[in-house]
């Protein structure tokens, strides 16, 4: 069951919101509705967020992303459509149920921190527990733990006003984590921070997410942040979701010109990973094969060396033409193989492939966690990955991830 499911969400502000939705459904443009006096903020947004996923909604200001996130915890009531949180329909819930769902399921981190200035840091962090009715001593202890988890020790009894922006947002994050809900909503949570601190917080968020396995819905206007954090990204424009996909899918296969233009400035080498540019090796050898067969294969393929794999494609080593041509009498390749010292994994960013690639003469081997050979990256391929999107070979691998949704 997905943690969050949104079905055809609409939010129209103004005097006659429902009419606005009807007009939009009938195919009228956003501009036409605006001229009629209503403001459509979110138009027909559908998506689902899986448990344990970081789902980023990315859009410029006025694209409706803040309105969208506020419908997920019921701060705004959708004009049409439904929101389900762990299968429970939020849109139909009574106010009482809504408060219960918020207490048990969803916490939120705000752009400008929204800490209560009249409460101490620890009491701020304990706020969610307070609404849950946890006794004072316990909620303070748990809030203290959450603060430590967020790297903020020794500030418990200070007021938020005495802290720097980055520290304040750590309190905001601790407040959300202390509540111990399954879902974290983060509304431009790092946008008000300095770039260096922002990066720091992003790293920490990823680390915390690995540790705690929260489901995170993250809103941002910063594409680099979206690409860094998001397992999947929804691109929003003028109230509509125009594309949902992984960072790589959006980079390599933008749904329209708007998205393409948007991602044009992204440092591709940091987003694209080895898996999206690796190729099938032209040939591999089995360890039981003899030197003569190996020699012939190298000649045929005009390769100076080949990788040797086991039956389950485990990477065992490699042999060069010299190795085999001087030992043609050997029964198999076991004694002739050289150790492979340089490997990369499928998730290594392209930017980090250049140094390893320069260290070896053979194409760079890409392996998985069981040391199986997934593919190789020849130097030519690596260079062409720096080029324009059209020239990036995407057909080689990772077919499972190719399900970029176009809306």
């Amino acid at each position, binding site marked *: 069951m997905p943690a969050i499911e949104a079905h055809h969400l609409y939010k129209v502000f103004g005097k006659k919101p429902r009419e606005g939705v009807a007009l939009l459904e009938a195919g009228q443009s956003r501009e036409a509705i605006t001229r009629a006096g209503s403001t459509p903020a979110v138009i027909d947004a559908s998506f689902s967020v899986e448990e344990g996923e970081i789902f980023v909604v990315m859009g410029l200001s006025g694209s409706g992303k803040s309105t969208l996130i506020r419908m997920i915890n019921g*701060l705004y009531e959708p004009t049409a459509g439904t929101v389900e949180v762990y299968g429970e329909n939020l849109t139909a819930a009574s106010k009482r149920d809504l408060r219960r769902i918020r*207490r048990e399921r969803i*916490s939120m981190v705000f752009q400008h921190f929204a800490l209560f200035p009249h409460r101490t840091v620890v009491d701020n962090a304990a706020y*969610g527990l307070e609404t849950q*009715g946890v006794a004072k001593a316990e909620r303070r202890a748990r809030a203290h733990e959450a603060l430590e988890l967020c790297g903020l020790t020794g500030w418990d009894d200070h007021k938020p006003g005495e802290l720097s922006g980055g520290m304040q947002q750590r309190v905001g994050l601790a407040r959300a984590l202390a509540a111990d809900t399954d879902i974290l909503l983060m509304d431009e949570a790092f946008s008000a921070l300095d770039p260096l601190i922002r990066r720091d917080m992003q790293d920490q968020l990823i680390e915390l997410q690995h540790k705690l396995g929260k489901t995170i819905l993250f809103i941002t206007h910063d594409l680099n942040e979206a690409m860094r954090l998001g397992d999947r990204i929804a691109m929003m424009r003028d109230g509509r979701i125009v594309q949902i996909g992984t960072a790589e899918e959006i980079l390599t296969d933008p749904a329209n010109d708007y998205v393409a233009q948007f991602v044009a400035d992204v440092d591709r080498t940091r987003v694209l990973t080895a898996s999206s540019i690796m190729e099938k090796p032209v040939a591999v050898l089995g360890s039981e094969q003899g030197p003569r067969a190996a020699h012939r294969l190298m000649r045929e393929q005009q390769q100076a060396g080949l990788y040797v794999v086991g039956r389950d494609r485990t990477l065992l080593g490699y042999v060069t033409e010299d190795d085999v041509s001087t030992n043609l009498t050997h029964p198999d390749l076991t004694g002739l193989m050289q150790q492979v010292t340089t490997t990369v994994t499928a998730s290594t960013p392209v930017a980090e492939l250049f140094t390893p690639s320069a260290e070896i003469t053979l194409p760079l081997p890409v392996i998985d966690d069981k040391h199986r050979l997934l593919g190789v990256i020849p130097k030519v391929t690596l260079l062409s990955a720096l080029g324009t999107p059209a020239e990036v070979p995407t057909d080689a691998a990772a077919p499972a991830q190719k399900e970029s949704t176009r809306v």
Partner: protein
Amino acid sequence: MSEPILHPLNLMPRIHLGDWVNTAVDWLTTHWAPFFDGIGNGLNSIVEHLTNLLMSGPIIVIVIVLAAIALLARGIGTAVAAAVGLLLIDSFDEWAAAMQTLALIVVAAVIAIVLAIPIGIVAAKSHIGSLVIRPVLDFMQTLPAYVYLLPALFFFGLGAAAGVVATIIFALPPGVRLTELGIRQVDVEMVEAGQSFGATPSKVLFGVQIPLAMPTIMAGINQVIMLALSMVVIGGMVGAPGLGQDVTSALTTLDIGQGAEAGVSVVFIAIYLDRVTAGIGKGSGSLRKAAAVFRGPLGRLAERRTEAAEDETTAKAA
């Protein structure tokens, strides 16, 4: 007076508002007399008791107590100035009148504040409430005081009660307006933060909105007190005892000297009350504890609600 040139079309019939008001006042004074008497007697006796309290000790003791309050609220400078001002009032032979005025103002201001804050909360929470309340406040603030002073005289008779009621009518509006403004000005994100963690509306109100609106609400309270003081002289006309009466009698006997002494005493009391309440609002001076006195009841109320909720959960768990 009916010059045809002014009324060429005779658009509006003569509406006899004055007659209606006369009838209404007559009707109220005859049929609601016990009600107004009750309120009048109550107010008179409260003011009297407070005056007696302020007059009960030697003047120097009262001066020290009032200066100590200034010290707590604001600091040593204000305390010294307060002591000097109060001693000057005594040297003008206006001490008794000043204490009567102080008692009257404190009673009127406390009642006005107790009414203003809840009304302000309603206005902040409800759009319709705000729409209804605003013109009423305009009316209260701009209607010339003499217009409601006379009916007050009819209802409550000559004395402190009529002065207190007139003062409340005049001084209440800024308390309501600034409470509404303060609550509306609280950052939306703060309110959302409360709501997003599942807090009930009353917990958001008492735990987030009112504490954050407190500086503005305190500015409103300060304004209520200052306006109450400016009604003192007018209150003197309906027999409210104190400096106002001295000023009024000085005016009628053309005794400019007595008028000046009473008038300057009003100013001293005004400055004292302004500095003390402003100090409490800002939480400045030697003690924020003074502010905690004001915030205390609200904070405790919110706390009690939480504890009640806690008990409920524990009970459920058991």
